[in-house]
């Protein structure tokens, strides 16, 4: 009995000590830091020089021209130039909902805004929306055979910037939904912000989406 109590006490003490270490913000691992290397002053200068060279190489990869940054979690689109924010716009991005493809047991559309790095590929004025299949299926309508039946002018705003695979930055009739995840993957803006983005962005302007 005494042995059991002693074991229990040791366990509790161990847990307490580990919790204490954790709550102090100290790393838990016994190999939680990289051991210091020794270097004389020449060695240190060499290391410093190497670090600066590599840091400079990374800096050279950063965009020097304005770039578009999209925060899909908080639904904001920024135009930045180095550290300067040139535009901060409320946006709507992908809803994350799914829609089954009819006649395809495993196929489905996922309405996410793609994440990663893209570039402006097209700059359109008065764009016409060519409604894809999902837009009809979602509404319970039959997919038209004629391309002309897919055209819907006036719903994308005055401008649209394409960044590949059918995704666009465009305007919206539903400005009350800006700030929410409601789209099928495109990025919606109000008219004024869309105009600013259109003016600042060129074909090739990087778009970073997270």
């Amino acid at each position, binding site marked *: 009995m005494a042995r059991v109590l002693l074991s229990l006490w040791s366990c509790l003490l161990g847990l307490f000590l580990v919790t204490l270490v*954790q709550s102090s913000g100290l790393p838990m691992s016994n190999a939680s830091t990289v051991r210091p290397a020794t270097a004389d002053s020449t060695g240190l200068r060499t290391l410093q020089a190497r670090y600066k060279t590599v840091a400079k190489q990374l800096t050279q990869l950063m965009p020097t021209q304005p770039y578009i940054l999209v925060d899909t979690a908080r639904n904001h689109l920024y135009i930045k130039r180095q550290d300067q924010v040139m535009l901060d716009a409320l946006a709507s991005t992908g809803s994350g909902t799914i829609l089954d493809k009819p006649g395809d047991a495993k196929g489905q559309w996922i309405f996410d805004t793609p994440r990663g790095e893209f570039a402006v590929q097209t700059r359109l004025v008065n764009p016409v929306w060519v409604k894809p299949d999902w837009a009809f299926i979602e509404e319970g309508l039959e997919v038209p055979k004629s391309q002309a039946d897919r055209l819907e002018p006036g719903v994308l705003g005055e401008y649209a910037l394409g960044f590949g695979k059918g995704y666009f930055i465009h305007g919206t009739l539903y400005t009350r939904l800006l700030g929410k*995840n409601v789209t099928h993957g495109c990025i919606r803006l109000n008219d004024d912000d869309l105009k600013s983005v259109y003016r600042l962005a060129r074909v090739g302007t990087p778009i970073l989406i*997270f």
Partner: protein
Amino acid sequence: MTLFSAIFVMFLSLAPVSWAAEPEMMPSLDMTNPAALQEATRVLEEEIKLAARPQTYVLIDLAANVIVIKGRGVELHRISIERWSASHLVQLTSQYRLNERPAVNRRKIDPAAGAEQDPISLADMPTAFALQFSPPFVVQVLSHPDNPWQWTLQRGGTWWRRLRSWGSFLWTEDKSSLPSLDLTVSVDQAQSLAWTVTENMPFLIRRPTMP
């Protein structure tokens, strides 16, 4: 005029190097610590490879206690780490690719129902989850949920994993267990991280060094 120019050139040559447009990639870096410099340089070299390609990536900076989402070397988003612990930290020198993003319950659109489905939002994201990588490595993300039951489950899971790891080490002397990292962040930040990461996303780890 020549004298003025000479003085100006002399002044420039004596000015501290930091006056030049010197990149400051890692503000927490101790420039007099050789091990810290080596580690920072290693991470930057890896980052250059990632930044050269059109993609976003994640730097878990254990020296500065932050997780940074980056693209092209630019910081896109920053998440503070409250606490961390690691096993096999010395081995964490690779680029790690995320196997899959944390699961989220997506709403399905039913065209027959006619009613619009609620979109997913940050609030739908998990507050505690494991990220599995290739090469094998696990990051366990924890937070402080308001619900005491959730908190107990999270902590219980962490303790269980640790006990198992210690047990296997003590009794079987098995040193082949996976490198792992436990990160504690706020609930919002955990959800933000779960939202941001995508399948195959590259991760880098910057390890802390002794002063």
